[in-house]
């Protein structure tokens, strides 16, 4: 990891928009704009939020060994992935701990796009190169501006800019033109798109889109509250090397036959974990009252025994109450299983297991 803070290519545009900045995963990121996190959040759910996510890393993985290499690195059958299909997957360690979560999209027979988290980008690249050494594959990190356009008006706002949506439905992606990658996906629970593109074209697109009354910048703070309401994990908080797809309640992302017979890294450990049953499970948590419960808070049972922990928490502007996510002992991981409490500054706040997401997903499935 380098100690130097990285800067977004469009930082000047965020400064022009009076963003407040803060450090995240080694990047100097816009956290909020003058509208504030609450309004930015609600605007995304009602209209269109524009996010600069250029801190995230894209890798183009190509070559006749690409599918085989990805199927080794991730619990995925890359060769069976239909063209344009995107899939959530993971890099696991030998213990089935989650090194990172990523989105893999099939671009062509021998070409895939891998989108990684900012904080793990360097480790992910090293990991892929390590595995890639055994396969005929080229791993190309891309230098792009990466933006997310999220909300019920996202498709229409892009079409207004003359962008052909290519008939994409949720979790589809393709390369619409030289240097571009576009997928119908996101991190808000809303319909939306993520577009990677060269900086000069990004400047024009962003500037033009902001002329549209429906579109406004949304910062990292609202990105976090949106994804939390949508029940989506943040690597480093809700999932990490100490958690595995079984305890994280993410087995749905791993095809059943691969869980049983897959040869991906971590497969043996994952099979053992599935067979023995996860000790703790990730769940949604709803604190009683108005006080937010943040990541790190222990979860206690009625007798004061620690039975879990909160991994992400805050206030949900759309639902109008605090929302959280965390891990509890598996026998408690269903709504109403027990009276639970989160400990915040020495006080016990009643907290209940809640189904995820808190706000219904509104993806466009065609």
């Amino acid at each position, binding site marked *: 990891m380098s100690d130097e803070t990285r800067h977004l290519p469009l930082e000047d545009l965020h400064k022009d928009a009076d963003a407040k900045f803060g450090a995240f995963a080694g990047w100097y990121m816009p956290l909020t704009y003058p509208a504030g996190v609450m309004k930015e959040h609600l605007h995304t759910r009602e209209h269109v939020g524009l996010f600069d996510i250029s801190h995230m890393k894209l890798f183009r993985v190509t070559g006749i060994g690409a599918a085989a290499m990805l199927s080794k690195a991730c619990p995925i059958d890359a060769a069976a992935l239909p063209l344009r299909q995107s899939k959530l997957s993971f890099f696991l360690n030998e213990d089935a701990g989650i090194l990172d979560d990523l989105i893999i999209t099939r671009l062509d027979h021998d070409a895939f796009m891998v989108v990684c988290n900012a904080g793990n980008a360097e480790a992910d690249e090293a990991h892929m190169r390590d595995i890639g050494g055994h396969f005929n594959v080229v791993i190309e990190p891309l230098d792009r501006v990466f933006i997310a356009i999220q909300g019920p008006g996202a498709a229409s706002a892009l079409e207004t800019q003359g962008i052909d949506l290519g008939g994409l439905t949720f979790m589809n992606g393709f390369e619409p033109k030289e240097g571009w990658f576009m997928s119908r996906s996101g991190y808000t629970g809303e319909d939306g798109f993520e577009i990677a593109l060269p900086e000069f074209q990004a400047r024009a697109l962003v500037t033009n889109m902001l002329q549209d009354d429906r579109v406004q910048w949304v910062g990292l703070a609202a990105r976090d509250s949106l994804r939390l309401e949508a029940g989506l994990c943040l690597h480093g908080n809700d999932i990490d090397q100490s958690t595995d797809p079984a305890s994280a309640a993410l087995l749905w992302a791993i095809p059943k036959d691969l869980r049983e017979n897959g040869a991906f890294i971590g497969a043996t450990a994952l099979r053992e974990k599935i067979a023995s049953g996860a000790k703790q499970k990730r769940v949604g948590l709803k604190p009683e009252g108005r006080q937010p419960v943040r990541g790190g808070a222990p979860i206690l049972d009625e007798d004061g025994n620690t039975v879990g922990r909160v991994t992400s928490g805050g*206030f949900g502007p759309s639902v109008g109450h605090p929302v959280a996510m965390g891990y509890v002992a598996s026998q408690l991981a269903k709504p109403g299983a027990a009276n639970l409490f989160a400990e915040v*500054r020495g006080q016990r706040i009643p907290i209940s297991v809640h189904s995820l997401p808190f706000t219904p997903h509104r993806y466009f499935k065609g």
Partner: protein
Amino acid sequence: MAKTYYTEDHEWLTVHQGEATVGITDYAQEQLGDIVFVEAAEIGKQLKKGDTAVVVESVKAASDVYAPLDGEIIAANDALSSDPSLVNSAAVGAGWLWKMKLADESQLDGLLDEAGYKKLIG
């Protein structure tokens, strides 16, 4: 109109007959962003200057608000339990956080006046 004092921790206080009303400044509420919860001040609690008096929670984070002077909390702002956003919309006024009986009014001398505070925040 009672004189308003300020602290370097971005609090304001007005003093009347040895009792101070305390809140955070407009600059502070702007930095914190949308306030969603204010932990009620504990009436009767004895505070030393610099002790945490209440915790203000924004969407983003929890922030301690410190006692600007020594004293005892004598009132909490009940309106904030139903409408914590008063701290945003009326930081210096209806969004006050607590009232305290000052132990030593001479401590006021160490605080900033409005001009001094404006200079601090630039």
